[in-house]
């Protein structure tokens, strides 16, 4: 059974790009246009094996999203990777404290992205 990855980004370009890369690698892709939509999806029963989220988007940013996701039952240990244009160390530390699994600076090479997913999600 294919592993599912949820992508959270307010950019349609990013959503399409990531969906193209991941689905080609045989992964199921769930898309959310913002943090609120992602949370609603999780609460609605979506069971992704991993989440990739942008940092700056809408009312709730990626770090706040991670904090909310970690509070949900069953999502304590799900890998969540930030995919953002920012690279400040302070922000990374903030994301780490919130429960992020990793930090990737855009743009990321497709092969590198898939390598990270396979490292964090066994069987992906």
């Amino acid at each position, binding site marked *: 059974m294919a592993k599912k990855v949820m992508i959270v*980004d307010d*950019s*349609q*370009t*990013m959503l*399409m*790009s990531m969906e*193209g*890369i991941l689905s*080609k690698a045989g992964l199921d892709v769930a898309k959310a246009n913002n943090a609120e939509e992602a949370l609603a999806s999780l609460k609605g029963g979506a069971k992704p094996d991993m989440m990739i989220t942008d940092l*700056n988007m809408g009312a709730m940013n990626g770090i706040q999203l991670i904090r909310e996701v970690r509070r949900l039952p069953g999502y304590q240990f799900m890998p969540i*990777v930030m995919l953002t*244009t*920012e*690279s*400040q160390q302070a922000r*990374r530390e903030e994301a*780490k404290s919130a429960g*992020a*699994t*990793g*930090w*990737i*600076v*855009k*743009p*990321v*090479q*497709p092969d*590198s*992205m898939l390598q*990270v997913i396979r*490292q*964090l999600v066994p069987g992906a």
Partner: protein
Amino acid sequence: MRPQYDLAALAGLASIAAALTVLSGYAIGTEKDLDAISLHMAAAFLITLLALAAMRYLTRVETGGHYNVRPKHEHERSLLPPSDRQNGAGSSPVLLRRLGEELAACNPIIHTLCDHVQNVVQNTEDVAIDIMTRLNRVDQAITELIDFLRASSHDKILPVIEQTEHRLHTILSDFLTNRTEAIFESRSHLGGIADSVQRLDAIVQSIRKVARQTNMLALNATIEAARAGVAGRGFAVVASEVKALARQTDQAAKDIGEGLHALKDAIGESMEALVERQGREQRKDLDTMFSAIGELEQNMKTVTEQQQETLVKMREESEKIAHLVIDLIGSIQFQDVARQKLNGVTGVLHQIVAHSASLADIVGSDHLGGENIEGVLAAVEMQRRQAMESSKISHVAGANSNIIDLF
């Protein structure tokens, strides 16, 4: 800035800043280029610095809220309103008011600049989505091609080859069966002829036996005719003729028997010759067929290998193209990176607008008192630092890439 600095220097800086602002605004309107944005930001910051310098200057030379500084040069006078120029003198409140007007005039330009930037962002996003859609179609077509090529190499070609080989073996087997049956039929016919000859030979022997007995009867008749004397002379002639006929009959039957033997030998030889000839011809035909089949199989093998090679090559190249398409799909992320950088620039520009608006309000105020200036300057300085920091963050974010940090 030291108090002895002339306001003329400040006015010059204001002129340069205004010119930069106008020029960059024009460039943005025509070229939509990031260099123009940088030029515009430089102008805005120069205006800010100029305003700060002017305010600091004023705080040092303040003499009760009014300043009397006469412009030394003509171009400084051009900054003054016509009424002040006619008076032949300028005053610092007038200059400050003009400076405030210049600062306020920058804001619509910067707003226009922000609109341009957002339009560019939206346009690039639309184009990027269109490219993504087309790339996905290309990827889908290549995937279907690869699947087809993979199926062609195994599921379609091999059954055709196996079917052809099976057909060839069937044809060959039928040929051999037909040939063997034909030989048996020919031998059967010749065997029937030989049997008939054999039966004729028996008849010939019977005829010869009858002839010999007739000859014996003729001999006895001759003896009896001799005993009869003159009365048996005529009978003696008949007996002699019967004897001659019996001899001729025996000779004829003997000749027929010899002829039948010759015919029987000839039939036997013909049978062997026929079998040998047919076998030879059959071997020859079989050799020709095997040679043709071997050649056909070799040709099919060559064609199959070439086709297989072509299919493998096409599949390999298609997979390379598919990988390149995925790389291209990944490269579309640059649009989002550019979007966020431009959004960062827009944010900085909005801070600059707020900053310059504050400055314009301050320098345009008729109640600019020295006791409030330091506080106002501190607030303005804080705004400037925030704008600089935002600009720096935006720049740093764009300068780094390929960073993967797993905690």
